[in-house]
């Protein structure tokens, strides 16, 4: 049984409480958005449910602070892109709560790097730019998987699948369903 087949049904949609980039303009649309955000906030405030999101967003803030100015690395790096920061914030908020918290960094081009690094052969890296382009690369044992997705609605399925495979290669297939 592959890790993909045991992925929880809602993972491809980024979670029930993920941002849906609400396009509604009515009062009732705003009301619903407020209700969902309140539930999302309360879920995040719960240590049991929100550790991944809280830790990841905290790391993003630290990275933003560290990379706020030109030449922040001493080698001419560009400061963190505002757009990349916002896109990364959305991406991290959309992560399912039971995903291991990633490491966050900023690259010399100002883009945000989100990485799950378990061993040299179990790694997933996602590079996020201001336009919402998600360039990902996964090392799963001897296999390498690469691709480009766009952040439209939650975390794109191919990235969730890649992450599941990386996690499964570390902990075994049952890790993808633990806690369901």
């Amino acid at each position, binding site marked *: 049984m592959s890790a993909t087949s045991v992925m929880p049904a809602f993972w491809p949609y980024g979670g029930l*409480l993920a941002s849906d980039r609400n396009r509604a303009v009515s009062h009732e649309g705003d009301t619903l958005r407020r209700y969902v955000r309140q539930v999302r906030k309360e879920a995040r405030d719960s240590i049991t449910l929100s550790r991944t999101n809280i830790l990841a967003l905290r790391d993003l803030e630290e990275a933003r602070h560290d990379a706020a100015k030109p030449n922040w690395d001493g080698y001419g790096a560009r400061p963190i892109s505002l757009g990349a920061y916002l896109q990364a914030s959305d991406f991290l908020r959309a992560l399912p709560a039971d995903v291991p918290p990633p490491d966050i960094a900023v690259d010399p081009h100002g883009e945000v790097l989100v990485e799950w690094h378990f061993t040299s052969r179990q790694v997933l890296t996602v590079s996020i730019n201001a336009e919402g382009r998600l360039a990902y690369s996964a090392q799963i044992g001897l296999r390498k998987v690469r691709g480009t997705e766009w952040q439209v609605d939650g975390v794109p399925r191919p990235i969730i699948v890649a992450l599941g495979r990386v996690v499964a290669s570390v902990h075994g297939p049952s890790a993808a369903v633990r806690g369901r």
Partner: protein
Amino acid sequence: MNSESAYSQQGESDLQFSCARLHSKVLRFTGTTDSNDTGLRGFNEMAVARHLSNAPITEALIDFRTSATQSLTPERLDRLRAVVPNEYSTVEDIYRFEAAFDRTGRIQTAVPETQLGWMFRSADGRQVAQFRRDGFTFNRLRPYTRWEELLPQALELWQIFVSVFEPTEVARLGVRFINRLPKVEPPGSYGLSEPPRVPVELHWELRGFLNRLVVVQEGGLSATLTQAAEDPVNPDRPIVLLDVDAFYAESLGPNDSEIPQVLQSLREMKNRAFFASITEETARLYE
């Protein structure tokens, strides 16, 4: 009986209507919210799909999502102003601002505004065309008119978006209807065929809820169903929000000939979800 006709919004013959009602009564056993009822429970008959003259639609959206690659230049705005129909007389910028506040209410972290697009509003404010960096949305506010009127308008405006922004693909198509039901029957179950329930053993009264389901149908169609009781909740006369967002998240070309049919299928899925979510008694209140 042709099960598909049960979900058509065209007029039903008396015989078809009766057959559809019988079909909806079968096995709709859902229980009651009466915490004292420990015996045989009743069931909430789901509504039969048909045209509602006073449909509780508060907003209808037809949504096209692309990748966030489109830049917002003055030239693009000029081109939009030149080709968007004159009835959309007001243009507003759409911005995003993000901030985090500490417990005293002071801003802890703030990110400057970033522009997301332009919003063209009709003179009466009932229709909105949103041209965004990551796609296009057509909104119709209350009072709702007819799908047959809105779809061509949305497709025409979408073609304007395509000509000005030149997207390479449509990543998601969506048809979303937000309904506000100020009257529901029976009020104890919020007028829903499958209402949220407090376990009988608790003997507690339900005073508010937010339900959200993500469902998948054959053919790649999905939907997010959101049900909520509007605050503040009056248990004798609750107001219910029912939001059905049907979407198709497979890539299509911006001029793909399948787009109108996909939107039609999404609308049909939305209709099925709406009528299946409410009771027949509630539907009658909006005829």
